[in-house]
């Protein structure tokens, strides 16, 4: 019974991780920018939702809109005003990474100054578990998380496969020059990617705010998961990132059957480290030229 319960917990956590990871993988795969500030988009979305819904006591639909707007705006502005100028000059991996990293530090601390560094959470009756079967507790929030993840992922697939812009995005990761030849602007596509990637974290952010609470440092954890899932799943494969995110969430919880809780975060990293050593291309990724 413990196993089943942890499996369900893992599924819920994994669904959220998958969403976050796919957002990062999309950005990284298409633009090759090490968007370390992805965690910051998450933090911003979560705190805006918390502020609008819990502090200002406004209706949740408006809170969701606010969170989405904030995250997307953040991603787009970062691309426009930080990444783009750097890419014009020399755009080495290192410079972009450092700029992204610096942004993440600033965001984390700004939020700490504004909202305080302790945990806050959004109180909602949806987080209360219901005993669906003896010994098995599931909260409505978990169910919502899984449904939302599936919906978003499905929507993303549709967007990438069926729309022009979506196909342009996929082309961007393969061959930016060809994209230009077809009359699409890589710059505009890149902005679109950041908007989309940041959009994908919003549901995960809101659900986390309601279930496990927030602190400014939460961006770190999000970033680590995104990185791990993207690499394990294989760079360039959204499906891989989603699967890996799900797997990591489940591994984190199932590890509790045998190990002490403090090792569960370590489990994620041991897996990541092993993959980097023995199979950097991950499950579904393209081989890495080395």
């Amino acid at each position: 019974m413990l196993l089943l319960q942890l499996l369900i917990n893992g599924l819920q956590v994994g669904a959220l991780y998958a969403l976050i990871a796919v957002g990062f993988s999309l950005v990284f795969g298409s633009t090759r920018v090490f968007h370390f500030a992805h965690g910051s988009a998450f933090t911003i979305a979560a705190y805006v939702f918390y502020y609008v819904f819990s502090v200002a006591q406004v209706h949740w639909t408006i809170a969701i809109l606010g969170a989405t707007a904030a995250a997307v705006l953040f991603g787009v502005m970062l691309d426009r005003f930080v990444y783009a100028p750097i890419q014009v000059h020399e755009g080495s991996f290192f410079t972009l990474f450092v700029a992204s990293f610096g942004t993440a530090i600033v965001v984390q601390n700004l939020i700490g100054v504004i909202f305080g560094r302790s945990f806050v959470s959004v109180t909602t009756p949806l987080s209360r578990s219901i005993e669906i079967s003896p010994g098995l507790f599931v909260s409505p929030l978990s169910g919502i998380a899984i449904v939302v993840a599936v919906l978003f992922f499905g929507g993303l697939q549709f967007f990438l496969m069926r729309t022009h812009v979506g196909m342009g995005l996929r082309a961007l990761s393969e061959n930016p020059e060809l994209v230009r030849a077809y009359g699409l602007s890589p710059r505009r596509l890149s902005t679109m990617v950041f908007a989309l990637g940041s959009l994908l974290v919003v549901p995960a952010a809101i659900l986390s705010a309601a279930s496990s609470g927030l602190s400014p440092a939460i961006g770190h954890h999000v970033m680590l998961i995104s990185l791990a899932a993207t690499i394990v799943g294989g760079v360039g494969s959204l499906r891989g990132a989603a699967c890996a995110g799900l797997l990591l969430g489940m591994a984190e919880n199932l590890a509790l059957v045998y190990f002490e809780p403090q090792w569960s975060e370590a489990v994620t990293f041991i897996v990541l480290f092993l993959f980097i050593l023995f199979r950097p291309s991950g499950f579904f990724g393209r081989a890495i030229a080395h």
Partner: protein
Amino acid sequence: MSIFKRMFATALVTAAMSAAIVHAEDLTIGALFPMSGLNASYGDIFSSGANLARDHINADNLIGGKLSIQYEDSQALPQQGVIGMNKLVNVQKVPYVLSAFTGVSKAISTIATRTKTVAVNGGGVGPDLAELGPYFWNVIPLANFEVRAIIPYLVKERNLKRFVLVYVDDPLGQSVRKEMEATLPSAGGQLVEALSVPATSQQFGGIAARVRAANPDVVYVASYGSQELQIVKQFRDAGIKQQLVSYSAFSIPELNALPEALGAMYTTQLVDWSSNDPVTKRFVDDYKAKFNKMPTAYIANYYNAVRTFALLANQLQKKGKPVTGENLLAQRIETRTFDLVGGKVTIAENGTVVVPMQIVEIDGKGGKTVSSAAPK
């Protein structure tokens, strides 16, 4: 080095005067509290008690001059505490420092011993706080007493025998676990499972599942600050309906206001707030007047810590001795018993106190006492 220079200079001045009371001297003591970060709420609580004591002492002119408290932010982190302690000892040259949190206290104890500065703890409860040297004093009963106080009540009166312990894997949590392992069997209970959590963890869904699987009668939580709030909330969310129990860390107002915490029990020092003893009465009345609510044990402890300093300093001044850490220690050993909030308190040779404990149940209205336990 500089402390000796100061002592020498003061001695010269003293010698130059008659045998009457030494001329008035303003004194400063230090305080290392978490003023920011996850545990900032404790800093607010502790300083409210310390400040009230300072105001009373200055109003009574107890030390002849003005008493001030220099606060440094420890963020409840040992590293920060050491930095703050260095500042207090080297820059402000205080002879007496208020400390809080087991980890921070352990970290600064080395400096305290090296520089002969007295450090007084009124909030941390890790039992190893009793072993940090002669310059480290505790005016709060330590966690092993708290655990020992509540176990017989839970087992005998409430008939809760199967215990699961959820603890932070730091010196405090580890000592709570050791104490439970030692005390439970003879009391008739059983520690079914002990689960340690990382200090910065926020996700307790999986741990809740393990707790449920162990099928306990009661869950003892040994954590603090925001984390214990999350544990209580997420455990209740996850369907854990068993009795929740903790030590004095549960006495913070945020937890008492949390709806999920209703019915939880915790131990704290027993202070008879309605006592007619003048020190206690003045403390309670003034605190209520200023903050519009009843004080708690933590606040009383830091009031007492500051008051003890003033009483000792007063005695030293009457003898014409300078107020240094070394002299404060000697004077404390000589005096032994002090009139503090709660009545006459005796500080033992090893710098600890033994006081009566009480068990409080959270009822959303400030808590109600359900039992008291005599000290061992």
